[in-house]
Each structure stands twice: as structure tokens, then as C-alpha cells.
């Protein structure tokens, strides 16, 4: 498969953007927990578990130019996106909190910040997982073409 320089540059840029989103989200989440001292709830931890490795996997892809990086990163992004979606539904009260498993320790529906009235931490997580997922799917399609 020979790709023109332009296509490969565009692909690299998409991957780079993807990595940027993951990196900013990782540092942002660390900022909340380590600097602002918000204790992460159980669901936040699951999202972090899927988010943090993305930074390293995507960076490795950026360095090696290995096209399979999109396929390796996709399951992580998808799983993280699902947890984030669940968390947001819980937060919005669409799923009642009684049936969720994280009543121990920190409540998953506690309000910490809300920027501009709607950007809560779970919402930020969903946004970043959504954009990572979308970019990876796009990349995957371009590579398999």
C-alpha cells in the first residue's frame, strides 16, 4: 500500500490531534484529583483506566508510524466512551443512582465543577472520549481504504 505524502501527513495530523485530546484529558483529570484534590469516584477511575494508556499507545504510534495503532487504541477508547456515557446518564438522573455500583466511597453524582452551567467533569470526559473515538474511527477507515 503506497500512500501519497499528503494522505500520510493528514493521517499523522489526525493521530496527533487524537493524542493531544488524550494528553490534555489525562493532565486535566490529574489536575482535578492531584491539584484541586477532588477524590475520583469509582466510575471516574474506570474512565481513567481507559484514558491514561491511550496517551502512551498513541504516542508510540506517532513515533513509529505504525498504522495498526488505530486498531489497538480503539477498544480502549470505546470502553472509556461507554463508561463515560453511563456516568453521564447517571449524573443526569436518567439511570437512578440506586442501581449503580459505586455507592461506596465517593458518590459518582456529586457536583464538583460545572463550567458555563453544563460542562461537568463527566461531561468533559464524554466529550474527550467521543472526539478520540471519532478521530480513531476516521483514521481506521482511512488506513483500511
Amino acid at each position, binding site marked *: 500500500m503506497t500512500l501519497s505524502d499528503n494522505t500520510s501527513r493528514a493521517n*499523522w495530523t489526525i493521530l*496527533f490531534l487524537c*493524542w*493531544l485530546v488524550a*494528553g*490534555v484529558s489525562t*493532565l486535566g483529570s*490529574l*489536575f482535578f484529583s*492531584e*491539584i*484541586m484534590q477532588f477524590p475520583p469516584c469509582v466510575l471516574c477511575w474506570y474512565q481513567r483506566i481507559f484514558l491514561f494508556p491511550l496517551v502512551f499507545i498513541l*504516542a508510540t504510534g*506517532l*513515533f513509529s508510524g505504525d498504522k495498526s495503532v488505530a486498531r489497538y487504541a480503539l477498544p480502549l477508547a470505546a470502553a472509556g466512551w461507554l463508561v463515560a456515557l453511563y456516568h453521564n446518564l447517571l449524573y443526569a438522573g436518567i439511570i437512578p443512582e440506586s442501581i449503580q455500583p459505586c455507592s461506596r466511597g465517593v458518590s459518582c453524582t456529586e457536583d464538583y465543577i460545572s463550567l458555563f452551567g453544563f460542562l461537568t467533569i463527566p461531561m468533559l470526559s464524554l466529550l474527550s472520549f467521543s472526539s478520540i473515538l471519532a478521530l480513531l474511527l476516521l483514521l481506521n477507515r482511512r488506513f483500511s481504504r
Partner: protein
Amino acid sequence: MKKQVVIFSGIFLILLFVLGGYIYKNQQTKKLGFLAQEHAEIFVRPHSPTLGSDEAKVYLVEFMDPACETCSAFAPFVKKLLADNPGKIKLVIRYAPFHDGADYFVKILEAAKKQGKYWETLEVMYQSQPYWASHHNPQPELIWRFLPGAALDLEKLKNDMNDPAIERLITQDLADAKALNVTKTPGFFVNGKPLVTFGDTELRQLLEAEIAAQYPR
């Protein structure tokens, strides 16, 4: 070239993180003042009764014993200090019930707090202290003659006094008093600085120095 972009963006993001953290911490320290100090919780526990504005930057922490004569004698003076510096001082009461049976009076105070009558009850307690706390013949029950002066629901008070939370709070306060080396009452701290030589002039000086430091003209 591409690799450099990744490395530089990575470094940039991390620097941004560190800088952001630094700015945030600085802001918090400014906002919280004394409370942001390390170990501030040893001086002010969430359960501690406080008097004065939340915006006050000078915390006057008093380890007191309701049965202590000097605490009682000092109370009007502390009140005056607060009145002389409106909005700048926050009084925090911590318990060091060193006198035998003084726990009983702490329990009354804490139960009164649940009725929103803490400071009134403390006032009544101090004023009636000579009657119930005489050294050769302490008669704690006599306090009940005076408590109606604070307009308390006495039945509720008797129930609330048995709350095990009060017991835990006394234990915590005594542990903090021990850690801070408070062996006599009243023990004063101004933003964490102990009143080394006991006396009203000394306390006023310590407070005024801290007010001058916190509220530069």
C-alpha cells in the same frame, strides 16, 4: 520533525500543568489564608464552634475549659478584642476540659449548639460558674438552675447531651491540645502562633501583630 512536534507538545502540556497547579495553589493559599497552612486542621476542626466572619483572616483559637475560672474571666476581654476588630477575627473554641467533671459542661454546650444557642449558653455558664464550680464543693447539677437563662429546650438538651459524637469530639480536641502542648486553659493561638506569655496585653499584641500582617494598610 514530526517527533519533535510530539515531544515539544508533550513538554508544553506538562509545563502548562505544572504552571496551572502552581497558580491554583497560590490562589487557594490567598483565599484560605491560615486554613491553607499545613496542619491547620489541628487548630480548627470541622466540628469546632466559631464566632466571627468567614472572611476573617485572623483565627483566634482558644482551648478552653467551661469550669476554668481564668477562661471565664478572660471571656469579656476576648469579646472586646473581637468587637474592636470587626470582620477580621474569627474565634474558634476548642475544648480542653482538664477540670474533673468538666466534660459534663462541654456536653451541655454542644447540645445547646444543636439548638443554635451555643454562645448564649457559654455566657450563662461563665457567669454562673462561681456557683457550680467552687473548688472545695463542685456542684455540677446547679448549672440547671441557670440554663433557662439561655432560653433552651432543657428536655431536648438532656437527650442531645448523650450523643456519642460529643464524646468523640472531646477526645479529638484533647488529642489536638496534647499535640499542641496545651497544658493550661485558656490556651490561645493566633493563626497557629501560640500565646507564649499569658496575659491580656500579650494576647492583644499578638493579635494586633497578626492583623497588621494580614491586613496591610
